[in-house]
């Protein structure tokens, strides 16, 4: 037995070595899938390793850190700092304040930090500083008001130098003129991060309400961290107190959690890539088996058992899987490196560190690569074992194939179940349940289509081939018949493309529907002539609304403010309204009044129903600082996407929001009738000029901004899905290259009876284009259906309009035909090189 299996292994290995191109193509499909899996692990491992390094020192020297009870609260009252100082065992106290800022560069424009934060912090001089002292590279620390020190990266990004003057915008306090006193070095100097150090007095004034600080670092003497923490908590029960170790651990934890999401996100695309790759590996093994039929039958004839035969095929799969995953891991490291470089070229703010290749990454990628390959080769291996020995004598055995009937019936059943799920999801009440039903229906329908695809291939390709092939005459006819010669193979080849395009199309439906819905909301719901917006993290700085309200020609300027409170035991976000909302954003009341005064709130019907509120009900809210407020429901309005669940007065907003946390989400402006809008725009721009970051947009521009945000999100998804498409295209290359090998003699015969080389090539191009377009049509049909139905289940989430991206769909079809031809370039050249003699010789 040992020697016989060694013999079979030898046959397998020789066989792999003898067909190097075939091997390379199969390995490539494994490589692409595993590379993505390995790449996402390496990418996130590297990030978490470097981030952990950066944050390891976040609480260096800090024994205890005290903060306010809630993150959105005012922080630690100044009086408490003095109290802490008096607690036994406290050696030093270092109050910290910080806030989001906007730094102006040498060109007078805000410096774009990309994804990294832009922070202003208080500078603690060496005597008071607890933890790592700042290392100044040049210049001095900021000790006077109006001085700041910048980190090296920020200085470079802003194109500023020590001694230069510029401006810094603090959203809650306005713009300040500053001089750069020095440059410091920091570990967290990732691409795009801006850290401006202010003299402590000025920082307190700018970043706090004057009575609080953000946090207090405490160093102890002669006591353990835990003991010190206990003493401070006891003395000041209103504060959250953590030991230095806890702070470090929690920070690390936050980093890990954030990166886990990135990892899952990337792995999802790795899974898609592998799924698509599975089809290619399966197809390749099927074709290789078909081509080796005579050889395998010969092995059977000379006495190899079925088990030996299937084991030998599976052994080949293991070898292919291993080679593929090893190369895949190497490619994954490259992918991670490239991804980081790409993201950093957009100033996303990822730290540079050595790439981390953990044993886990290697093991997972290897396992996935080998398991997927063996899984894909399992069915072909079983088929190989079933070959009767007499098949060696027969010529046309390969093309026989078993009936598709059972497969088609099973596919039809799945498709029906899928359709039922989809229809059920579409007609049921919007929400998670409906989306789940649509999801299950989609999976069942995909399975149904997968099973039924070989049967679908014939009529669809015939229908496609008639118009596409006509101009090419007999070449077109040959291409058409070749494309469905082996419907299973055509289906499996096309299905890889189907999956990729299905996802792309579904996402495209989401995107276009979201854009259309937003446009609809703005067009139908907003009567404001201009809208003021600010950067995501900052919003519109406080004061801008008041300034524009005084501009000549402005009838109303309404600021919408973010209200964060607690009621019913959970965090709730509502909208504070400063101004006459009905002027700029009309909404319909169902009961009560529109007017918001004092502690009144207005609730949407849904929110009111959900909480059992009626006009006059009392709602007890808790502010971030822990203050309880009694509010009264003054009115209930019909559901309105733009307004959200509930609104309250600006007065209440100010009562619950610390001054240094205040900003406006948007400011809506209505012009006085008869005002020239373009003149008004100029005036508005002049009025908001000092707040630096505020943009004045009319409704069309506002819609455009929203649309471009959606487009940016889609672009990332498309970029990642492109990998699946690339794999699908490689699958087409693979199938065609192997078919050409299979059809050597036939092509030789065609050449003998007079087919010219360009005609041979054209046949292959057309065949490939037909397969690709078949896959694309099925993918588009599925993607449009799923996309539209998912959007429908989200109709109460603001996606109330379904938009089919027609232009994009058509261009995807055309593109898939082009891609098909490109995939055929190399196989076609190989086919055209076949010499006519090969049809008759070598028998």
């Amino acid at each position, binding site marked *: 037995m040992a020697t016989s299996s060694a013999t079979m292994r030898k046959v397998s290995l020789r066989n792999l070595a003898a067909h190097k191109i075939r091997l390379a193509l199969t390995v490539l499909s494994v490589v692409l899938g595993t590379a993505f899996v390995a790449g996402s692990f390496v990418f996130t491992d590297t990030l978490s390793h470097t981030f952990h390094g950066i944050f390891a020192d976040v609480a260096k020297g800090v024994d205890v850190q005290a903060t306010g009870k809630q993150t959105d609260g005012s922080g630690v009252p100044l009086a408490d700092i003095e109290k802490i100082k008096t607690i036994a065992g406290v050696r030093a106290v270092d109050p910290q304040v910080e806030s989001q800022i906007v730094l102006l560069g040498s060109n007078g424009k805000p410096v774009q930090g990309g994804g990294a934060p832009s922070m202003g912090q208080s500078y603690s001089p060496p005597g008071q500083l607890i933890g790592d002292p700042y290392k100044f590279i040049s210049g001095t620390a900021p000790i006077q008001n109006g001085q700041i020190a910048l980190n090296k990266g920020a200085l470079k990004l802003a194109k500023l130098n020590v001694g230069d003057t510029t401006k810094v915008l603090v959203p809650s306090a306005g713009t300040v003129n500053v001089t750069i006193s020095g440059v410091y070095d920091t570990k967290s100097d990732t691409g795009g991060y801006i850290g401006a150090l202010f003299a402590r007095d000025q920082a307190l004034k700018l970043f706090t309400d004057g009575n609080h600080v953000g946090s207090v670092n405490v160093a102890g003497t002669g006591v353990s961290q835990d003991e010190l923490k206990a003493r401070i908590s006891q003395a000041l029960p209103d504060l959250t107190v953590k030991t230095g170790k806890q702070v470090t651990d929690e920070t690390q934890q936050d980093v890990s959690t954030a990166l886990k999401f990135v990892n899952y996100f990337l792995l999802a695309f790795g899974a898609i890539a592998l799924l698509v790759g599975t089809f290619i590996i399966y197809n390749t093994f099927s074709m290789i088996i078909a081509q080796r039929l005579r050889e395998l039958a010969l092995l059977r004839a000379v006495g190899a058992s079925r088990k030996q035969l299937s084991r030998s095929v599976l052994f080949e799969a293991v070898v292919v899987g291993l080679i593929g995953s090893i190369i895949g891991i190497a490619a994954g490291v490259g992918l991670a490196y490239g991804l980081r470089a790409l993201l950093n070229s957009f100033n996303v703010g990822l730290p540079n560190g050595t790439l981390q290749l953990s044993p886990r990454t290697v093991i997972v990628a290897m396992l996935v690569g080998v398991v997927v390959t063996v899984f894909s080769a399992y069915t072909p291996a079983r088929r190989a074992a079933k070959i009767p020995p007499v098949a060696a004598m027969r010529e*046309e055995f390969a*093309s026989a194939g078993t009936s598709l009937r059972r497969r088609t019936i099973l596919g039809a059943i799945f498709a029906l179940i899928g359709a039922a799920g989809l229809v059920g999801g579409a007609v049921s009440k919007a929400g998670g349940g409906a989306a789940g039903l649509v999801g299950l229906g989609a999976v069942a329908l995909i399975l149904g289509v997968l099973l039924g695809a070989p049967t679908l291939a014939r009529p669809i390709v015939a229908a496609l081939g008639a118009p596409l092939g006509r101009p090419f005459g007999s070449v077109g006819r040959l291409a058409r018949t070749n494309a469905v010669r082996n419907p299973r193979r055509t289906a499996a080849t096309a299905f890889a493309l189907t999956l990729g395009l299905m996802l792309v199309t579904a996402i495209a439906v989401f995107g276009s529907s979201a854009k259309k819905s937003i446009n609809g909301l703005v067009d139908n719901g907003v009567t404001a002539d201009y809208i003021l917006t600010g950067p995501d993290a900052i919003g519109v700085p406080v004061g801008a609304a008041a300034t524009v309200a005084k501009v000549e020609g402005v009838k109303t300027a309404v600021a919408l403010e973010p209200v964060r409170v607690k009621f019913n035991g959970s965090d709730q976000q509502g909208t504070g309204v400063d101004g006459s909302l009905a002027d700029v954003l009309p909404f319909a009341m169902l009961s009560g009044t529109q007017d918001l005064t004092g502690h009144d709130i207005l609730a949407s019907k849904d929110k009111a129903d959900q909480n059992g509120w009626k006009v006059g009900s009392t709602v007890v809210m808790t502010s971030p600082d822990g203050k309880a407020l009694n509010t009264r429901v003054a009115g209930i309005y019909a559901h309105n996407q733009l307004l959200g669940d509930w609104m309250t007065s600006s007065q209440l907003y100010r009562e619950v929001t610390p001054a240094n946390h205040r900003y406006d989400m948007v400011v809506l402006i209505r012009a006085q009738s008869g005002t020239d809008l373009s003149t008004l725009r100029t005036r508005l721009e002049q009025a908001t000029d000092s707040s630096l970051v505020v943009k004045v947009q009319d409704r069309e521009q506002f819609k455009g901004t929203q649309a471009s945000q959606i487009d940016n999100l889609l672009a990332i998804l498309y970029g990642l899905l492109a990998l699946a498409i690339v794999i699908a295209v490689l699958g087409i290359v693979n199938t065609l290259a192997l078919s050409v090998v299979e059809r050597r003699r036939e092509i*030789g015969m065609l050449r*003998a*009876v*007079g087919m010219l*080389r360009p*005609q041979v090539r054209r046949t292959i191009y057309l065949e490939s284009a037909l397969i690709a377009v078949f896959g694309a049509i099925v993918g588009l049909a599925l993607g449009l259906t799923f996309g539209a139905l998912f959007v429908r289940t989200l109709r109460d989430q603001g996606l109330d309009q379904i938009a089919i991206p027609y232009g994009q769909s058509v261009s995807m079809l055309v593109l898939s035909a082009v891609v098909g031809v490109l995939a055929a370039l190399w196989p076609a050249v190989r086919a055209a090189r076949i010499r006519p003699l090969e049809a008759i010789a070598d028998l």
Partner: protein
Amino acid sequence: MNSPVTSTSGSTTTSSQQPATAAAAGRATAGANSRIAAARAVHVSKIYGSGGTQVRALDDISVDFARGEFTAIMGPSGSGKSTLMHCLAGLDNASAGSVTIGDTELVGLSDKNMTKLRRDRIGFVFQSFNLVPTLTAIENITLPMDIAGRNPNQQWLDSVIDTLGLRDRLSHRPSELSGGQQQRVACARALASQPEIIFGDEPTGNLDSRSSGEVMGILRNSVTRLHQTVVIVTHDPRAASYADRVVFLADGRIVDEMRAPTADSVLDRMKNLEAV
């Protein structure tokens, strides 16, 4: 059998005029001993490999194949009979010498022109892999003309189909046809485009004796009645007995020739050759 109309299909290329001319020439001289060669090899050598492993498959062969004549090339394995046919049919290049089809010199012809020559002026019947499995019988028959973008001469096509008894098989695919039927379709394809010359490479190699007889009968008839020129390579003396003339090869040289062969006389000659 109806005498087919020999007018051309209306194409203006000179090559498509050839069948008419050839057939006319064949009728004019009325028989097997025409002086105008349909194919000619002059001092043709074919050498494979180089140095110590060099094999001389054809060794200075000169031979003519007259119009309207049915020739069988015979010889033991490795005698070069297939190589000679491949060189004559434009499937392989001679290492030295001259090969002509009609008045066209094949040596030095580009791949494109060689392909067009095969397509427009030569018919083929191979041992196997004769037909495109995805095309029906009629599509296979008209394939060379379809590739050329020419319309077949419908009257001629009908007479070929009826003569070969393929009328009720036209919509079948090769997998639905017997071996003999497949080979008849291949013959129909070769005849349909009215080529100057038909080459057959072991056309009966994969057939039982009854089907062999049918196929050879078809080729014989095409020579006798339609003045077609046919050259086949075979190792089957019974197949060779359908020919007007048998050319014997051994070790890359022509060693003998026989007219009006019978199966027995061919078999005797072959035995002698293999004994040498």
